[in-house]
Structure formats: structure tokens, C-alpha cells
């Protein structure tokens, strides 16, 4: 007899055990496929929630980056009024100010569609794509925006079923109708920002709202050193007491409350999914079936070591959970970024008529995927191994004592 321990290839050993695990999984096809589907569904919900929450946060930070550091509004008896451009000089002279620019924008309610548009006159310098770092939130073909034409956001195009060449009839301040032709649609990094936008030429804007050449809606102020923003803002109030500077932080807070509400919905979904997963893993951890126990007994009796049995169960857990993990993640990606969170839609709708298709720009980080991995694959695999441990240390002679089936 050859009792010398032969060197066995560890890789071949793993392969052999994986072979066995696969055929072992195959024979309970219905049960295991059901398990896999349930598991993938939970991963899907978790992943959808995580993708959605972090994408929406990312959108918020994008919006923030595109927001001017300080906006100055003219106030008349506590009401937002038009900003006289002659006051710009005074703001320019405040120490710490880098640049000042007048903006022309306003909301327009289209009663035919019941939708609110945001009309913006694009600043000449930023009309198209700039170097990637400072890329604006949206870009369009600047040459297309001639007098009498507009460039519309995706949401506007969708709701009004508009495309290039169509026109929108606007009702001007005096009740007359101004027809503006759609020259192009906007491309953007974040549809959240551009969906309800309409870019309009300066002349058309002034005609529509009856705003004189010497006025703007408000002005934006660029600051040399971002740490001086509060100081600069208070200096502006001193120089022009009838104005109100709005700093970026305040704008962020407003956005935050909107995003947090949506994020909050996601946390509810997320916790429900985690709870389901815990119950599911607990059920798995709570024990092996009599059949599984008997099988482990047979394996030990025919010469498997305790570690072989545990390795086999490890692979079983790993194969099931990795498959479910990848299936769930891929489905969630499709769900959140390609179908616009179709399943979550009821919870997300109702912000505005212009958001019937809430489509997010894909942002996925390794961190999210790792978090998800530790939330699902790791606990499940452990939950499969632990009860096996107890069964695998039984004496191999137990199988000898099975006398009937």
C-alpha cells in the first residue's frame, strides 16, 4: 500500500470540487433557479436604489458646479425686479470680484400643454462646448440660434412632441403671438438641468417679456477666491442696498431638499430589500436539510475531508451569489439608466409635467459595486458555509450506520 502522501495539485483539487459543486447544483434545478431569481431580485432592488441615489447626488453636484458663485437680484419692495445694467459697474468695483455678467431668463407657462418652461438667453461666450473640465451643463450649436429661433430641452421636445423645424407659439406681454422655430435640441450631461429649458435669442426674449435694453433679469458674480464669497456678498449689499445677493450654498440647499426627498424614498426601498435579504440568508443559515446532511455523510465516508466538504459548500455559495450579483447589477443598470427607473416611477413622478421620462446619466463607481458585494455575496456565502461546518465535522462512520433509506 502506498501511504506516502502524494502531492496533489491544489488547482486540480479546486477544479474537481467545483466540478462536483456544479453537478450538485444542477440536480436541484428548479429549487436553485428559484433561489437564484429571488436572490437576483434582491440584488436588483438594492443596486437600483444605490445607483439611483448616487446618480441623483452626482447630478446635484453637477448642477452646483454649473451654478454661479453669487447671483445678485434687484429688489423692489421685497419683490424680485429687473436689474438695471448701469448698477453693474458698482458691483464690478467691489474688491474680490473677478467678473460680472447680466442674465436674461424667466419662466413661461404654456397653457396649451400645462407645462412650465425655463427660458434662458445663453451668454455669448458660453454658447457651445468648452474644454472638458469646465464643460457647461448643456451645449448646443450656437450658430443655430438666430433671431426667430429657439433651442429646446429634451423634456420640452418630448411633451410638445416637437422636433427640428416645428415652432412654438408664445403669447407675448401684450397678448400678441410670437412664433419661434425650433432650430435644435439640447444635449446635456444631466437631463435634470436641461429638460425644461428653452434657449432663446436676446432680441426675442426682450420682445416677449417687454424688457428694455438697459435691464437684465439678474446678474452673476464670479469671485476670485471662493473663500471670500460671503464677504463679497455683504459688500455688494452695502454698495447696492436695494439688491439681494444669493450665494451658491443657498441654491444648493434648495436642491438638496428636493434630492433628499427622492433619496429618502430610495432609503425606504433599500432597507426593505436589506431586510428581505437578511431573512433570506437567515433561512439559509438556519440549517441543512436531512438530505443534505446525509449527502455530507456519504462524502465523508467515501473519503472527503472536512475541508473538502466546506470548500464545496463555499463554491456553492459563491457560484450562486456571484451569478445573482452580476445578474442583479446588470438588470439594475438597465433599469435605472436605460428604462428610467420604470419600476420606481410612481414614487418619482409628480415633480413636473416635464419629467415623465426621468432618465439619469449613468454614474457607477467601484465603491458602489464593492458596497453591494459586501452587502450580498459575502453574507450569503458565509451563511452557506456555517451550517455545513457543523455537519462536516461528523465522524465519517456515520454513513456506515445508515441501514435503510
Amino acid at each position: 500500500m502506498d501511504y506516502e502522501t502524494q502531492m496533489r495539485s491544489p488547482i486540480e483539487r479546486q477544479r474537481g470540487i467545483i466540478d462536483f459543486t456544479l453537478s450538485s447544483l444542477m440536480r436541484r434545478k428548479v429549487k436553485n433557479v428559484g433561489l437564484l431569481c429571488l436572490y437576483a431580485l434582491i440584488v436588483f432592488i438594492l443596486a437600483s436604489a444605490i445607483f439611483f441615489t448616487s446618480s441623483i447626488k452626482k447630478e446635484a453636484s453637477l448642477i452646483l458646479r454649473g451654478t454661479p458663485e453669487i447671483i445678485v437680484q434687484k429688489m423692489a419692495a421685497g419683490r424680485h425686479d429687473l436689474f438695471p445694467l448701469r448698477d453693474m459697474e458698482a458691483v464690478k468695483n467691489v474688491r474680490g470680484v473677478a467678473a460680472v455678467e447680466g442674465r436674461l431668463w424667466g419662466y413661461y407657462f404654456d397653457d396649451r400643454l400645462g407645462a412650465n418652461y425655463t427660458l434662458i438667453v445663453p451668454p455669448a461666450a458660453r454658447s457651445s462646448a468648452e474644454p472638458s473640465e469646465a464643460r457647461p451643463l448643456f451645449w448646443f450649436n450656437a450658430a443655430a440660434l438666430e433671431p426667430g429661433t429657439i433651442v429646446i430641452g429634451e423634456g420640452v421636445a418630448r411633451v410638445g412632441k416637437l422636433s427640428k423645424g416645428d415652432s412654438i407659439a408664445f403669447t407675448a406681454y401684450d397678448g400678441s403671438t410670437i412664433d419661434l422655430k425650433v432650430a435644435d435640441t439640447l444635449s446635456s450631461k444631466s437631463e435634470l438641468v436641461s429638460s425644461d429649458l428653452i434657449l432663446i435669442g436676446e432680441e426675442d426674449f426682450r420682445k416677449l417679456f417687454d424688457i428694455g435694453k438697459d435691464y437684465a433679469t439678474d446678474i452673476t458674480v464670479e469671485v476670485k477666491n471662493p473663500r471670500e464669497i460671503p464677504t463679497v456678498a455683504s459688500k455688494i449689499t452695502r454698495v447696492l442696498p436695494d439688491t439681494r445677493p444669493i450665494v451658491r450654498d443657498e441654491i444648493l440647499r434648495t436642491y438638496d431638499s428636493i434630492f433628499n426627498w427622492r433619496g429618502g424614498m430610495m432609503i425606504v426601498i433599500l432597507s426593505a430589500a436589506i431586510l428581505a435579504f437578511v431573512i433570506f440568508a437567515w433561512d439559509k443559515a438556519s440549517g441543512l436539510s436531512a438530505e443534505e446532511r446525509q449527502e455530507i455523510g456519504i462524502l465523508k465516508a467515501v473519503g472527503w475531508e472536512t475541508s473538502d466538504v466546506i470548500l464545496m459548500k463555499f463554491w456553492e455559495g459563491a457560484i450562486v451569489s456571484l451569478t445573482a450579483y452580476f445578474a442583479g447589477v446588470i438588470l439594475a443598470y438597465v433599469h435605472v439608466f436605460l428604462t428610467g427607473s420604470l419600476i420606481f416611477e410612481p414614487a418619482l413622478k409628480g415633480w413636473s409635467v416635464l419629467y415623465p421620462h426621468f432618465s439619469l446619466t449613468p454614474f457607477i463607481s467601484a465603491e458602489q459595486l464593492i458596497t453591494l458585494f459586501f452587502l450580498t455575496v459575502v453574507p450569503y456565502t458565509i451563511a452557506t458555509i456555517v451550517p455545513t461546518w457543523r455537519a462536516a465535522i461528523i465522524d465519517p462512520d456515520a454513513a456506515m450506520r445508515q441501514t435503510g433509506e
Partner: protein
Amino acid sequence: MIELINVKKVFNAGRPSEFTALGGISLNIEDRKVTVLKGPSGSGKTTLLCIIGCMSRPTAGRVRLDGREISGLPERFLTDIRRKGFGFIFQVPNLIRGMSVLENVMLPAYPLGEPHARLKERAIRGLNDFHVSTKATSKVEWLSGGEAQRVAIVRALINDPDVIIADEPTAHLDTHLSYLFMEIVENFKKEGKTVIIASHDPLVCESRIVDSVINMRDGRIEGESS
């Protein structure tokens, strides 16, 4: 040669349910012979087979295998000796349901890391030897009793052990199948394998191929005859 020196096995030692299953067995089992452990139910045959086959350790006494003491070895080594040196035929076939005959036969070899193709070839050859190769891809639950046992035998032989241990192999077989089993044992002997059978079936104990019968009662040997 397998030597047992004053081997004892006590279950549940120190507890009220303490039970001495083997009360000091000294025995030599010769290589290439067929040895039968005979005795009524509860006499300790299975317990003794487990100790001989490195499935469990004696409470006291020594077991030597080809002169090497194995009773003190750690579990890992025992497993290794067991899976290379011993083939087990259980009272029931102990096949894993839902898996094919072929996979069941390959079972003991998976953790040894032999290349799959070579292992499969060997398994098919084994099934051929026992005339069950046509069933290779069927599920084990469709086998008849005799077929199931032959598959279990092929499995016991997959790692080409020198010693075959069989516990009440004919308990669930009819007379015809029992004779067939004894023919298989005869072939083992011809191939130079050592066979140890626990049985109280006269068909086994009185067979001409048996070299030695050891009578057991209450965990002790009554007297040797041949």
C-alpha cells in the same frame, strides 16, 4: 497485514449511557485473504470495521497497518490513508440521489485533483467491468438493487484500494445477487486485494472463498475457525 492489539471502543465514555462496544480485540488480518467478521447484531462488527478502515479511532489499543502504527495519527492523515488504501461497500449503496451513475462513481476522487478526463475514463472502465456502463448517464434512483450495489462497488474501487471493506453486503440482496456478490469477492481475491466482510449471512460465512471467519459476540472474539 493489519494488526489489532487489544483494541477497545467505548461510546459516550463517562456518561450514564457509557457503552463498551469493543472490549479488547486482538487480531491479525492477512493480506490478500478474505476475512469474515461473524456475529449477531450489536456484537461490534461495524464498529470494528470502522476502526480498521480508519473511519474512527479506538478508545484504547493499537492498530498497525503494514507495521506502521496508525491509531495515533491525526484525522487528516487518517483520511488520506483511508481514501487511498480502503474501499468501502456499505450495507446500503449510499449513492447520492439526483446525480448520474458516473458522477457517483467519481465522487471519492474529486478532492484528489486528478484531471477530469482521466478520472472519467477510469470510471467508465470500472462500470464496464461490472456490466453497468449502459447506465453511466442515468440517475442513480432508476437503478435496481443489484445495479445500485455494483455501482457502489465501482465507486469503492475508483482509487484502486488494496483493502476492501464490506459491511453486511448481502443484507439487502436476494440469493442470486448474493452469489453474484461472492463471485465479485473471488475476483478481488484473484487480483490480490484484501477483503474484510462483516456478515452473519451463512451464504457468506460458509462460502469456500472465505479464508477465515472471526466469531464475535458482545464486543469480543469467541474463537477463530477456518
